[in-house]
């Protein structure tokens, strides 16, 4: 029962922190001098991008743990799949919120900017990974195939992160996730703390989603096994009775 209570507490903490974030982001923090109130999109866009990196990082870790013979266990493949699905949801939302923000600041919904393009590629790569997970086969071969595909897709992660440094882009440089801006942030006061609150709230949400999606995936596996066992039992019964 302890685990169930822990998940519920995590759920309550997630909802409370997201509610606080909404108040801080939309009411308390000041508007920006240049971007005016459109800057308030930063409090969801940057945290969701952070969760995107973390989610695909968990996918990479799960895939590595599955591929290493010493740690190989089916649970790592399940964890990788659960994290990837959540990562795809967040990547989609990063693209949508970024597009809305881009419309207000750049005047266009979309441009083939390096950061935007590499993020869109990441989205498509992991959609492909999720599709690949549905392809049948021997469970071990499937998990190995999934793990290799996930690691191949993860090559795009550092490219997304570094794209604003490697190429000349419209997208601003990293807000927090590099050494210079982390130690000497360009944003201050309530804006800075609200952004950190947003990252914390969305990481709590990611943890809650991951726990529940992992449990759902385990249940799906169990139901699939049950269905297979039932079908085999029916076949055996048919063979014994000679029925078609």
């Amino acid at each position, binding site marked *: 029962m302890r685990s169930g209570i822990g998940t519920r507490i995590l759920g309550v903490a997630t909802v409370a922190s997201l509610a606080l974030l909404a108040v801080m982001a939309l009411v308390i923090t000041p508007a920006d001098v240049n971007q005016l109130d459109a800057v308030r999109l930063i409090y969801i866009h940057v945290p969701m991008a952070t969760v995107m990196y973390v989610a695909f990082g968990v996918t990479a870790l799960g895939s590595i743990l599955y591929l290493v013979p010493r740690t190989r266990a089916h649970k790592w493949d399940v964890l990788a799949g659960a994290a990837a699905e959540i990562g795809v949801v967040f990547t989609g939302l990063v693209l949508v919120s970024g597009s809305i923000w881009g*419309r207000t600041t750049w005047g266009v919904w979309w441009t083939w900017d390096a950061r935007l393009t590499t993020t869109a590629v990441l989205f498509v790569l992991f959609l492909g990974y999720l599709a690949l997970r549905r392809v049948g086969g021997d469970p071990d071969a499937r998990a190995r195939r999934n793990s290799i595909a996930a690691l191949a897709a993860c090559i795009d992660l550092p490219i997304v992160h570094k794209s604003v440094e490697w190429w000349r882009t419209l997208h601003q440089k990293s807000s927090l996730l590099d050494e210079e801006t982390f130690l000497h942030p360009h944003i201050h006061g309530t804006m800075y703390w609200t952004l950190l609150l947003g990252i914390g709230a969305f990481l709590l949400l990611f943890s809650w989603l991951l726990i529940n999606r992992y449990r759902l995936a385990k249940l799906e596996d169990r139901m699939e096994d049950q269905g297979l066992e039932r079908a085999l039992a029916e076949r055996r019964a048919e063979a014994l009775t000679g029925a078609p």
Partner: protein
Amino acid sequence: MTHVGYLIAGYGVTFGVLASYAAWIVGKKRALARELPPEERDPRWP
């Protein structure tokens, strides 16, 4: 406040999609758990 429409769209889509996704996970998990025989159900995962 400026850009109200964009803010409603951004926050609305984000929280709407995430709430729907969370509800789908919980709903499907409960539906599958109900299909399991009682002895196989995990009391930690209601």
